[in-house]
């Protein structure tokens, strides 16, 4: 088996009496991009913090490059680039000081790349971190995360609260890390179109568990969205086997479902309906079907 960059096994973690992670397993191999999605509080940030050794596993194991990030922070963090959601940066430093400070921890620091990014972003190195706008903070944090050309790049909600220009800067950095150096990237995002474009693999977290995980194209193939017409008028969503989410009203309903189309066709026919059209579901539809309110509705129906 290919050596895993990240290997998380049955990881559980509680804060006080709240379960944040519940038996989470997650694997990442080299040169791939992993998108992590899920509602707020689903456990994405908690999982990422375990990879960085910022949190200790209550049960289960976490390995990054085969090392335990809590026991061997130096061995792990020197090879990881991290952009946190809150972009915690030393406020009193200038950008230039931040660069030199980060460089000191990373022998592989690529000064030419750092300069190139500073130029591209038009950041003034003399500016203090505390004077920076939200977008500039993200850009400065991004340079600090990628300029040592880390083997693993971890981005927690990198696009959160940013305008389209800075979002592009971040996506470009991801593309370059993978295309130029064959690096591994794990990023969490609530922007599903971004995840759909940028990810090779997708993991959906829901209430501290992994709701689904796999190669993005495979995951998408497993779900379809069909428009269905019934002979009979329904006031409430009709119960259809394999249906995960049902929207609509009267005779026309739109259904996200898994399993074979043939199976679904039979289930619909059993309720006196027929499929008008079917296509692969989008990531957003899968997300809502597996982790949204639509799921509860379909289950209650």
């Amino acid at each position, binding site marked *: 088996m290919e050596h895993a960059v990240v290997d998380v096994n049955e990881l559980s973690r509680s804060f006080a009496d709240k379960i944040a992670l519940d038996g989470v397993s997650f694997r990442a191999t080299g040169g791939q*991009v992993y998108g992590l999605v899920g509602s707020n509080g689903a456990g994405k940030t908690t999982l990422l913090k375990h990879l960085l050794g910022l949190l200790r596993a209550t049960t289960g194991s976490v390995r990054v490059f085969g090392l335990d990030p809590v026991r061997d922070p130096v061995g792990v963090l020197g090879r990881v680039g991290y952009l946190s959601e809150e972009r915690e940066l030393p406020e009193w430093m200038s950008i230039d000081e931040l660069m030199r400070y980060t460089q000191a921890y990373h022998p592989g620091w690529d000064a030419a790349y750092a300069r190139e990014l500073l130029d591209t972003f038009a950041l003034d190195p003399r500016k203090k971190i505390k004077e920076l706008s939200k977008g500039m903070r993200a850009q400065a944090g991004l340079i600090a995360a990628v300029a040592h050309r880390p083997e693993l790049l971890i981005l927690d909600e990198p696009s959160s609260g940013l305008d389209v220009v800075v979002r592009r800067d971040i996506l470009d950095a991801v593309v*370059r890390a*993978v295309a130029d150096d064959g690096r591994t990237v794990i990023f969490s995002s609530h922007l599903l179109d971004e995840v759909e*474009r940028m990810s090779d693999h997708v993991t959906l977290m829901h209430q501290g568990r992994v709701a689904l995980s796999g190669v993005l194209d495979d995951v998408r193939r497993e779900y379809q969205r069909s428009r269905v017409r019934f002979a009979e008028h329904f006031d409430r969503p009709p119960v259809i086997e394999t249906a995960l989410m049902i929207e609509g009203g009267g005779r026309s309903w739109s259904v996200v479902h898994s399993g074979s189309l043939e199976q679904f066709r039979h289930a619909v026919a059993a309720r006196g309906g027929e499929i008008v059209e079917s296509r*692969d579901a989008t990531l957003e539809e899968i997300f809502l079907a597996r982790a949204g309110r639509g799921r509860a509705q379909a289950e209650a129906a």
Partner: protein
Amino acid sequence: MDISINLADGVPIYRQIVNQVKYLAASGLIKPGEELPPIRTLALQLKVTPNTIVKAYHELEISGVVQKRQGSGTFISDARPQLALRQRRRVIEQRIDGLLAEAHQLNFTTDDILRMVRERKAAMDESGEEAAEEKKEAGR
């Protein structure tokens, strides 16, 4: 390269790229021997993971649309892929379906549309001749 990604239609991104490159090659919009953009360039342009481009180029290579050359890039094969009549019809029919739906929305009849298509074609031919004339003028 003129490729656009549509996330709403449920087709995997690598397949959208494969289909569009096939279409561009079959319709002569990219010529045999022409180089495709490097993986990194196209990934940056489309804002997609580079592995998706790798997958698309690999599939295009298997189907003979492109060739990899050692140490350089990916090039359109010399034999232009001939789309089967059915496939060619499908490409055009999809466009027509969209056009008709929009025409209906905007209150044009099918006859209006047919007439407008001919008018546009005539206008294009004319401006094409003008452009050729200008080229000749400039060449003198």
